[in-house]
C-alpha cells in the first residue's frame, strides 16, 4: 500500500518539521497575545455611538441646544491626546462617549482616549491605585469622595486653583457648598465635583396606603418615621413587608450624620481621630434605632437579607421606606414596578442633618497635557456639561445649582425631586461622614461586633463600648493621613 506521505501534491510531514511548525506557531500566537495585551484597549471616540437609552439624534439635538462657553485656555495648535478615566456602568458609558464625540468636534486638536473601569468604585480604586504604583495615571481621573484624599495627599493630583481663578465663566459659587468639601487640602482645590447627592427618604406609596398610614412629607420628624416603620411592617416569611429596607449599621459611612447626629450623638470626632460612640447621647441614639429592629423587625435580618439574595427589599416592593442617596433614583426609575416618591430626611429632636457625598474629576500632576485636560474638565463640568451628562439622563445629583432646573423639568425627576435640591442647599452636610484613610479598617472592625447586636446576643451599650475599643487604635491612620 502506498503511503499518504508519498502522494503527489501533499507535503510530507515528519516529526521534526511538525515540531518546528508547531513551535513557530505557538511562539507567534504567544507573541501576538503578549503584544495585544500591551496595546491600548481604549480607542479614541471617532463616531457618534448610540444605544436604546441614548439615541444619536437626541444627543445631537441636545448638544446643539446647549451653550458651550470657551475656556480662556487656548486650544493646542497641534493635535494632542488626553486619557480620561471614568467609572460608568456600561449603559451610561455610551452617554460619556457621546459627550467625548461632540467635545472633539468643538476641539479638533484634542483627542480623547476614554477608559471605563465600570461602576464599582472599589474596582476603580484597585485599578488606578495599581496604575499609580506603576507611575501610569491618566491625564484626567474620576474620584470618589471616599478615596480622593488618598491620591491628593500622595501628590498625584494638580491643584486647580490657578485654572479656576483664570477662568472667567467658571463661577465656583455655582457649586453646592457641600460638594466641594471632599477634594480640598491645605486650602486648595484638587478636583472639581461632578456629582453630589444627599441621603433622602424614599417611600412606596402603595404600602403606605395599604397600611392606612399617611405618606411622609418634609414636616416629618424621626418619631414619625419610627411610627410609620412599625405600622407598615407586616407579615412573615417570603411575604413579609418591612418598614425600612436596609439594616442600620455602623459600617454605613453616613450613620453619624443621618442616624446619630439628629439625636445629638456622634460616631467619631470631626477630624476622625477620636471616638464618641460610647458617649451617652450616642448610645441612646443607637438604641433608639436598634429597638425598632429588636422589637418589631422593621428591617430584614441577615437571614432575611440572604433569602432575598442581598437585593434591596425596597426595589423588590417589599419595604415601605428606603434610606438612600438621591443617586438611587435613576435605578428605581428603571426597575421599580410600583409607585414611589422621595421626600426630605426627617429632623430629629436635636437637629436636622443628612449626609451628602459624590465624586469629582481631577487632573493628574504628571499629565503632560494639563491645558488640554483643563479645557476638557472645564467643559465637562460646566452647566451645559452637567445638563448633557446628568440632567437630561436622570442620573441626577448635579453639583452646579444652575443645572438643576433642567433636571427638575425632565421626565426622569421623581416625585419630590425638589426635596433633593432643598436638602443640598439647606441641611445636607459632610460633617460626620466617615471617609478618612482608616475607613475600610473601621468597617471591618465594627461589623463582627454589630453582627452580634443583629443576632440579639449583644446589648447596644456593650456593643458601643466594644466598637469604641476596636476603632480607637485604627484612627491613628487618619491622623497620619
Amino acid at each position, binding site marked *: 500500500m502506498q503511503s499518504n506521505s508519498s502522494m503527489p501534491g501533499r507535503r510530507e510531514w515528519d516529526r521534526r518539521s511538525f515540531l518546528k511548525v508547531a513551535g513557530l506557531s505557538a511562539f507567534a500566537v504567544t507573541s501576538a497575545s503578549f503584544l495585544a495585551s500591551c496595546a491600548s484597549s481604549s480607542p479614541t471616540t471617532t463616531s457618534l455611538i448610540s444605544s436604546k437609552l441614548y439615541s444619536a439624534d437626541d444627543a445631537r439635538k441636545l448638544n446643539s441646544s446647549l451653550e458651550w462657553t470657551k475656556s480662556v485656555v487656548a486650544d493646542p495648535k497641534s493635535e494632542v491626546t488626553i486619557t480620561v478615566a471614568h467609572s460608568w456602568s456600561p449603559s451610561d458609558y455610551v452617554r460619556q462617549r457621546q459627550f467625548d464625540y461632540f467635545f472633539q468636534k468643538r476641539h479638533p486638536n484634542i483627542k480623547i482616549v476614554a477608559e471605563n473601569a465600570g461602576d464599582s468604585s472599589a474596582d476603580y480604586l484597585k485599578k488606578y491605585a495599581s496604575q499609580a504604583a506603576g507611575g501610569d495615571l491618566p491625564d484626567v481621573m474620576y474620584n470618589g469622595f471616599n478615596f480622593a484624599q488618598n491620591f491628593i495627599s500622595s501628590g498625584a493630583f494638580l491643584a486647580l486653583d490657578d485654572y479656576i481663578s483664570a477662568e472667567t465663566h467658571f463661577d465656583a459659587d455655582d457649586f453646592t457648598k457641600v460638594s466641594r468639601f471632599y477634594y480640598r487640602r491645605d486650602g486648595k482645590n484638587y478636583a472639581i465635583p461632578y456629582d453630589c447627592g444627599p441621603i433622602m427618604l424614599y417611600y412606596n406609596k402603595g404600602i403606605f396606603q395599604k397600611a392606612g398610614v399617611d405618606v411622609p412629607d418634609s414636616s416629618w420628624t424621626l418619631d414619625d418615621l419610627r411610627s410609620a416603620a412599625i405600622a407598615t411592617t407586616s407579615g412573615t416569611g417570603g411575604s413579609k413587608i418591612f418598614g425600612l429596607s436596609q439594616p442600620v449599621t455602623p459600617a454605613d459611612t453616613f450613620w453619624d450624620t443621618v442616624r446619630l447626629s439628629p439625636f445629638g450623638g456622634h460616631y467619631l470626632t470631626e477630624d476622625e481621630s477620636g471616638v464618641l460612640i460610647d458617649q451617652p447621647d450616642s448610645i441612646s441614639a443607637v438604641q433608639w434605632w436598634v429597638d425598632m429592629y429588636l422589637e418589631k423587625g422593621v428591617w430584614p435580618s441577615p437571614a432575611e437579607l440572604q433569602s432575598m*439574595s442581598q437585593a434591596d427589599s425596597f426595589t423588590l416592593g417589599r419595604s415601605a421606606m428606603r434610606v438612600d442617596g438621591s443617586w438611587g433614583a435613576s435605578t428605581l426609575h428603571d426597575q421599580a414596578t410600583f409607585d414611589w416618591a422621595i421626600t426630605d430626611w426627617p429632623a430629629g429632636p436635636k437637629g436636622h442633618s443628612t449626609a451628602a457625598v459624590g465624586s469629582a474629576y481631577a487632573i493628574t500632576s504628571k499629565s503632560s497635557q494639563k491645558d488640554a485636560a483643563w479645557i476638557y474638565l472645564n467643559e465637562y463640568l460646566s452647566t451645559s456639561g452637567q445638563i448633557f451628562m446628568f440632567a437630561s439622563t436622570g442620573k441626577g445629583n448635579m453639583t452646579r445649582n444652575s443645572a438643576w432646573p433642567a433636571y427638575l423639568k425632565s421626565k426622569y425627576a421623581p416625585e419630590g425631586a425638589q426635596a433633593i435640591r432643598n436638602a443640598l442647599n439647606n441641611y445636607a452636610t459632610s460633617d460626620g461622614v466617615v471617609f478618612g484613610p482608616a475607613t475600610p479598617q473601621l468597617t471591618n472592625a465594627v*461589623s463582627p461586633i454589630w453582627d452580634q447586636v443583629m443576632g440579639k446576643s449583644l446589648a447596644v451599650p456593650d456593643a458601643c463600648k466594644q466598637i469604641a475599643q476596636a476603632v480607637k487604635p485604627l484612627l491613628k491612620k487618619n491622623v497620619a493621613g
Partner: protein
Amino acid sequence: MTQTAPAPLSSKPIPVRRRGSALARQEARAFYGFASPWILGFVLFGGGPVVAALLLSFAHWNLLTPPSWAGLANYQRMFADPLFYRSIVNTVYFAAGSVALGVITSFLLALLLNQKVRGVGFFRTVFYLPSVVSGVATALLWVNILNPDSGLINSILRVVGIKGPGWLVDPQWAIPGLILMSIWGAGNTIVIYLAGLQGVSPTLYEAARLDGAGAWHRFWNVTIPMMSPVIFFNVVTSLIASLQAYTLVLIMTGGGRPGTAGGPDNSTLMLGLYIYREAFEYFDMGYAAALSWAMFLLIGAATAVQFAFARRWVYYDA
C-alpha cells in the same frame, strides 16, 4: 512470503548520546526552546512577584507613595494580630474538613462509578459536570442551597422534622456550610481516582479471591494499598487548594455590603481573604505580603508533614 530471522540484539548497537555531542546540544536547545514560554512566564509572572512579595514584606507600601523600609515590623504586627490567628484557625478548619470530606466522598463515588453497570458513562458525566461550572455560579447556587429559610438543605431537614441551622449567616455553621459546598467540585478528583482504580491489576483481585478474601478484605488489602499513591496525590493537591480558599468564600459570605466579607463575626475570614482585605481594601501591601509568606510557609509545612507521613501508608508498586 519469506520470514527473516530477527537480528540479534547485539548486532545493532543503540547510539549513545554523549554530553557535548552535536545531537545532545541540539536536543538541549530544542528542549529549552519549547520550555522557554513556560520558563519565561514563570520567571516574569511567578518568580518576579514571589521575590517582590518577599521584599515588600519588609516595607510599608500603600501603592500611592513609594515603599518605605519597615524591617520586621510587618512580621511583628502579624504575630500580635488576633485576626491573623483567627484566619489561620478558620483556614485550617475549612481545609481539614473539606479535604477529609472531599477525599472520602470522591473516592467512594469513584468506586461506584468504576462498576460495570449500564449507563455508567452517563453517571460519570453527571458527577463531573459540576466541575465545569464557574466559581461565581457555584457560589451563588450554594448561597441559595444553604439559605436558612428557603434553601434546599433546610427544606429537606424540615420535612424530617429538623430545624436547619442558619448556615452562612450563623458564625457556628458558616464554615461547615462552606465545607459542604466544597464537595460540589469533586469531579476532577473522581476522574483521578477512576484512572487509578482502572490501573489496579485484576490479577491482584483474582489472587486475593483465590486466597478466600471477601469484598471488604479485597478493598482494604488490595484497593487501598494500590490506590494509596493516588489518594496521597489528591490529599496533597486538595489541601494546597483548600488552604488558598478565597473566591468562593468572598462571594458566599461577602454579601456585597461593606464589612461583610469574612462572614458573620469573621467566622469565614480565611487567610486568603485576609490577604485580599489588607492588600486591596486597606492598600497595606507590605503587611499583605508578609501574610502571603505566612500562607506560603503554612502550605509548605502542611505538605512537608504529609510527605513525612507518606512513607508509613503510601505504597509504591516497584
